[in-house]
């Protein structure tokens, strides 16, 4: 049983209420921080912990905090990015739904560390009911003196607001989130200036993922060094993984980073292995944006080392033979899954969610979708596969925000690892329509693990 930092008390009945949460040691970090720590020492602790942003990019949180500009007389803000919209990712929802006070507690100490007096939780529109849960938790915290004026007599004021978005994937990009929070169209901004210098209302702003902020609580209750001891190498601490697909036990798991992928997928403590006696075909380890990995490359890196659930190990080999940990959306595909259809589905999502600001992403995603439409419906040709490769190459790196890259990577990886399956679709137009199934050809290539 690995260590649980975030979900330790998740099964306690009534943990979503203030009383039970407080009994279980909740809000201790607020007391500790406000009474015995300074903002600088908190930032220092977070830096020592090696905590990395859990939203997908994996940028060290402490470093992000220390970049925050602190001009005199200008208010600063902390924004919590709860716009969790990556297909395959549902960890933040679970956390906020079950144990909302953990996020509130994290927001209070993080805001204190950054010197923010007004902080926001930006939550996606589809999580409307979660926003009610959070608002109730905020009201409870406020009634007990953990929010509002002069918290615990320390002289520190904090107001915390929940803002519900309109349900756009693009608003999970931090500058688009800021625009949306300001009441504008959620288009990403040009960088620089970065939010740390000019963010919300042109004020210095830090945007962090829900899980990152929640992890700060444990770090303060214990210490940065203790947190850094958990995990492996630069991937410190624990990570919530949203496991889905044809596995025996889908759900949200808290794992210690560095857990072998084999153990995560096949042990009964976690996913419990493939369901219905199917064999593993491929895995998307970190949400729809990251490259898909075929079974053989999933278990072992190109060097032959066993792959671990960590930022470094999953990225081993670059995009040629590796992937990314991303936001932890762990999607498992069994032998019946059709990679072409899956790629088509992802591309449909990115086409729908592109903000339409810059041309490569706006037009490129639509073009890729149409080409994939043809291939998926048995009307494609071999040239279409090359065309698809060429389009994604032309989107990647040429856009304002990472959505262009996120749209291009899954297509690139699908063609890179499963080209036979695309070709199979071209050669067997009728069969691929009758059954979603590129298996016949592609399984021969991979030594599938039962």
């Amino acid at each position, binding site marked *: 049983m690995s260590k649980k930092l975030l979900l330790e008390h998740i099964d306690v009945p009534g943990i979503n209420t203030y009383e039970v949460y407080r009994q279980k040691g909740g809000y201790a970090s607020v007391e500790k921080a406000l009474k015995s720590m300074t903002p600088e020492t908190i930032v220092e602790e977070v830096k020592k912990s090696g905590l990395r942003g859990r939203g997908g990019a994996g940028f060290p949180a402490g470093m992000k905090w220390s970049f925050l500009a602190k001009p005199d007389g200008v208010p600063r803000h902390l924004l919590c990015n709860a716009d969790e919209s990556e297909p395959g990712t549902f960890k933040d929802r679970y956390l906020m739904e079950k144990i909302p006070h953990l996020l509130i507690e994290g927001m209070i100490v993080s805001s204190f560390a950054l010197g923010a007096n007004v902080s926001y939780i930006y939550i996606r529109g589809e999580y409307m009911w979660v926003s009610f849960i959070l608002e109730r938790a905020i009201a409870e915290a406020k009634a007990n003196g953990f929010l509002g004026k002069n918290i615990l007599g320390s002289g520190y004021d904090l107001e915390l607001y929940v803002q519900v978005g309109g349900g756009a994937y693009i608003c999970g990009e931090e500058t688009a989130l800021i625009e949306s929070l300001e009441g504008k169209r959620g288009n990403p901004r040009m960088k620089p200036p970065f939010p740390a210098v000019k963010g919300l209302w042109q004020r210095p702003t830090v945007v962090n993922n829900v899980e990152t902020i929640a992890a700060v609580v444990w770090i303060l209750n214990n210490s940065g060094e203790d947190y850094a001891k958990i995990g492996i190498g630069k991937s410190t601490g624990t990570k919530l993984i949203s496991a889905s697909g044809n596995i025996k036990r889908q759900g949200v798991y808290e794992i210690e980073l560095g857990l072998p992928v084999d153990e995560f997928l096949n042990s009964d403590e976690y996913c419990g292995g493939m369901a219905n006696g199917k064999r593993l075909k491929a895995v998307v380890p970190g949400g729809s944006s990251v490259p898909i990995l075929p079974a053989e490359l999933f278990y072992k890196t190109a060097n032959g080392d066993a792959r671990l659930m960590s930022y470094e190990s999953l990225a081993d080999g670059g995009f040629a033979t590796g992937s990314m940990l991303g936001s932890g959306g762990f999607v498992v595909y069994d032998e019946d899954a059709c990679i072409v259809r899956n790629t088509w589905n992802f591309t449909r999502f990115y086409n729908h969610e592109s903000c339409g600001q810059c041309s490569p992403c706006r*037009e490129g995603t639509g073009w890729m979708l149409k080409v994939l439409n043809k291939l998926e419906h048995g009307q494609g040709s071999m040239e279409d596969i090359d065309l698809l490769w060429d389009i994604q190459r032309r989107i990647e790196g*040429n856009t304002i925000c990472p959505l262009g890259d996120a749209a291009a990577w899954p297509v690139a990886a699908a063609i890179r690892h499963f080209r036979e399956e695309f070709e199979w679709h071209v050669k067997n137009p009728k069969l691929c329509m009758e059954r979603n199934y590129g298996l016949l050809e592609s399984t021969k290539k991979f030594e599938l693990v039962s």
Partner: protein
Amino acid sequence: MALIKVTIDGIETQVEEGTSILNAARSIGGKIVPPAMCYYSSLKGSGGKCRTCLVKVTQGSEKDPRPMPKLVASCSTNVMDGMVVENTASQDVIDARKSIVEMLLVNHPLDCPVCDQAGECSLQDLSYEHGLSTTRYEFERRKFDPIDIGDHIKLHMNRCILCYRCLMVGDQLTNEREHGIIGRGDHAEISTYLEKSVDNEFSGNVIDVCPVGALTDRTFRFKSRVWFSKPLNAHRECTTDKCSGKSVLWMSDNDVLRVTARKDQNNEVKEFICNTCRFDKKDVKDWVIEGPAHISRDSVISQNHYELPITHKYKALENTAKPQ
């Protein structure tokens, strides 16, 4: 302000701190200037969207000589001291630009033969210079019906490349913006509130800033190809606040076919004009003619085959048009 050094395609120049790479290139001029479809120097906040002005920064600055990892939009990236930029010198940039042009044309109807903008269209020039002669796009393009937004302006959403320039005109020149972008991605469109008209004294400037034929002048619609009309610089005493009164009359014989604001060598309007000047003053007598307008661009209307004869031909007209 301190001058800093920047090298673009091997040409060294000195510019003020805070200048964008694009403006630094424009100060040098010539072939090294990256094309820009959405950046507009007289509109605040424009740029960064079309990605046609991507360039490669091979040296970040004197202090930090590392190259930038990706191509950057030259219109929204400021120069640093000792920066080295490659535009046409870099094959990556040429390839990327070709891709962008292809992307911009993916949903463009290419209806130049019936488009009023043909001849003075930035997209036409851009694709002529950087694009392919064929298309790899074989699907149906997005379709919208052309609609009238107001008495004077026609919107052809099919042709729009979503540069956001017209929104900035609405925000920065008129009292209140009456149109916006609805939807997102490739299904986004310029629209007014429930087809209400765009009707403001400076709304006509959206026609001038539109790089393509998405917003055209209804009073000029289908009257003439632009290269058959003769541009004359003219001005009038305009009483409207903020209107420069400086314009270009596009003539056919003695008729004023249309009035536009003056564009500089970068195809940008610096001094905007009001709707009265643009749409209501269609008589030569309303204007003081200054002489033929020189259009210093590479497109078909700038071939200058008419410039000399015009001076001669309109001499008489010029005299009559002067105020008594």
